[in-house]
């Protein structure tokens, strides 16, 4: 009877401890609130590390393996809409995703879990731009591509280093 009681206590404590990751929670909290007028969904939080909330621990419902935001021009805020993001992993498998009106793209873990390192290309308007280096473990583009660029960040992901005219995206 005593042994059963002890096992129950240990089990309960383990359950409680496993549901709460204070470091994860603090990091999510530091991202700040949703932007007014943009509900939680595919268009929200461009430029933020998507997989942080969408890694299965919440608060994002969808579980993502790779996700991020692509911009038209280096250091400019206009998103790159309707681009195709190609991913090839070390196991020879490939996946594609498109960017939406916020420039966001995402690949669900259920569809594709890359074997790292993985290589990425952005395709738009007939141009295919490769990422300079492969991804080794991080599913969120923004972890390495935070804005602004600095000694520990490559800056936002962009298609063109120079200002060029893009076609109307048709987005509101």
């Amino acid at each position, binding site marked *: 009877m005593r042994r059963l009681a002890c096992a129950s206590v240990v089990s309960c404590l383990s359950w409680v401890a496993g549901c709460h990751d204070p470091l994860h929670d603090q990091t999510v909290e530091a991202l700040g609130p949703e932007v007014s007028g943009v509900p939680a969904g595919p268009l929200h939080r461009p430029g933020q590390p998507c997989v942080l909330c969408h890694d299965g621990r919440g608060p994002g419902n969808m579980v993502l393996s790779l996700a991020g935001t692509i911009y038209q021009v280096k250091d400019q805020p206009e998103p790159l809409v309707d681009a195709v993001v190609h991913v090839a992993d070390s196991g020879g498998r490939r996946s594609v995703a498109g960017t939406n009106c916020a420039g966001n793209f995402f690949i669900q873990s259920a569809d594709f879990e890359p074997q790292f390192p993985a290589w990425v290309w952005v395709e738009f308007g007939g141009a295919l731009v490769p990422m300079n280096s492969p991804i080794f*473990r991080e599913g969120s583009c923004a972890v390495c591509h935070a804005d602004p*660029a600095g000694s520990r960040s*490559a800056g936002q992901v962009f298609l063109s280093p120079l200002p060029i005219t893009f076609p109307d995206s048709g987005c509101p």
Partner: protein
Amino acid sequence: MTTRSTLLAAQYITWLALLPSASACSIDDRFSLQTPPKSSFPLVSNVLNNRCGSLDCHGDPRRSVWMYNSNGMRLGDGIPGIGATTEEEYAENYVSIVMLEPEMMHTVVLEKGRAPERLTLVRKARGAEEHKGGVALVPASYADICLTSWLSGFIDEAACITDAELVPPEPP
């Protein structure tokens, strides 16, 4: 030899020309322990940088071993993805590598690189020990030979140049 390999070899030769002459097992005046040759380290660093030094791995200051490089964390005002790895960054990487386990490094170097797996650096890179980054250096590959030959004091430069970069898959 590819254009890129030629550039890396030229970079190494330039680095070598700027340093005072050093014996194969020289004692750097900063260390009281035996260390691998600093003069040939850039070749090794290039191999490690491209496999280990990305912003999401050891190009992240939260990791135990820091690797500064052109596509990872930069020293000073550098931006990842812009400009080649600098001499100062190579110097910092050298310290990072040899001072990870200085006593064991001393022993391995003193014994001409015998049993390099005694170093955690080698075990983790080979995937012989739990390593989030998986297998970075396939045992007996040119990249692995580059590192282990450097530890022996007689670096295989051809191996380092051959496997300096990861070969990406065919673009989509």
